[in-house]
């Protein structure tokens, strides 16, 4: 079951796909790419069924996701869809395998994330599909592995600082500890979708703090948009 529920799209009169941008921004709050699940500053609207192949779905909001420029470019999904074979000259593009669709798929059932940011295919029915997605979307590129490693380190550091705070350690620098922990919680709140989509465990205490920070960020985001 998918972990991202976009809800019903807004009802607009004669909309262009660009009119759904604000709705998508809210669904993918945190600027999280639908394919690599990592936050990016610049997200583009991607048509899951490519515009060139499915012209009748160009303005269909259920065909839209937000993706980073890497995933939406030639190094990623680009205009691939198995029903409209041959986006490239690769024979493998005719494999018939679908690219991850966060509205339908559960990424946690497909992928595993190691502490060093390495992504792997989870053993089971979806293993081949997961491997294929990792390769086609370049999810194992160095840049992305490093990004995931930093997110995992952020989580680990926050858990450890929280533990220190709970145990009354670091008394001499309590103020600094609170400040750094606050920053980490905010960073985790911004990347919350990554942890949710991949089902990466978080302690109850940290989750409560991250959820609070996320609610505040979301309220600010809504007020500004």
């Amino acid at each position, binding site marked *: 079951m998918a972990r991202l529920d976009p809800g019903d799209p807004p009802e607009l009169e004669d909309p262009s796909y660009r009119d759904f941008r604000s709705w998508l921004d809210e669904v993918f709050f945190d600027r999280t790419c639908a394919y690599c699940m990592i936050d990016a500053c610049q997200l583009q609207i991607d048509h899951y069924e490519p515009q060139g192949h499915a012209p009748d779905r160009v303005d269909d909001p259920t065909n839209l996701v937000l993706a980073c420029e890497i995933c939406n470019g030639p190094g990623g999904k680009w205009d691939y869809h198995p029903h409209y074979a041959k986006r490239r000259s690769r024979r493998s593009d005719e494999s018939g395998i679908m690219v991850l669709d966060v509205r339908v798929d559960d990424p946690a059932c497909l992928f595993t994330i190691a502490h060093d940011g390495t992504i792997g295919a989870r053993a089971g029915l979806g293993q081949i599909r997961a491997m294929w997605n990792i390769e086609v979307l370049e999810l194992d590129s160095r840049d992305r592995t490093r990004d995931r490693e930093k997110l995992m380190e952020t989580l680990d550091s926050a858990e450890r600082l929280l533990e220190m705070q709970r145990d009354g350690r670091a008394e001499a620098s309590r103020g*600094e500890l609170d400040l750094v922990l606050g920053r980490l919680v905010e960073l985790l709140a911004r990347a919350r979708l990554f942890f949710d989509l991949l089902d990466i465990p978080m302690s109850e205490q940290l989750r409560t703090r991250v959820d609070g920070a996320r609610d505040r960020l979301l309220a600010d985001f809504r007020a500004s948009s």
Partner: protein
Amino acid sequence: MLLMVDSVDSVRTPVKLTSPSRPAFRIRQWILDLQSVTSLEEFMRLHGEERHQLAMRRLAGEPLTERERRRLEALDAQLDRLLPRRPPRKDLDDTLASARRLISLYGTPRPR
């Protein structure tokens, strides 16, 4: 003509090239071809299939020969150069550095 081939294959000694059919000549040509690719699109068109096959085998845990492993490494390195760069996250780096420092200073519980 003497040529030093120092990557991709294990040929490290100068070899005399007399014919394009010599392995070292082909390896050098392959490296030059790979390095001459300047766009991601071109890379995918020319080397995408080869990298896909090798990477899928690596992901499946299949053993690769030394030659295949080095070839995949060279392809990966070239791909990394061509993929768009993400802007560095200075706030994240700074915060993580502060957290690491605090953890190293106070992370171990003090003896009671």
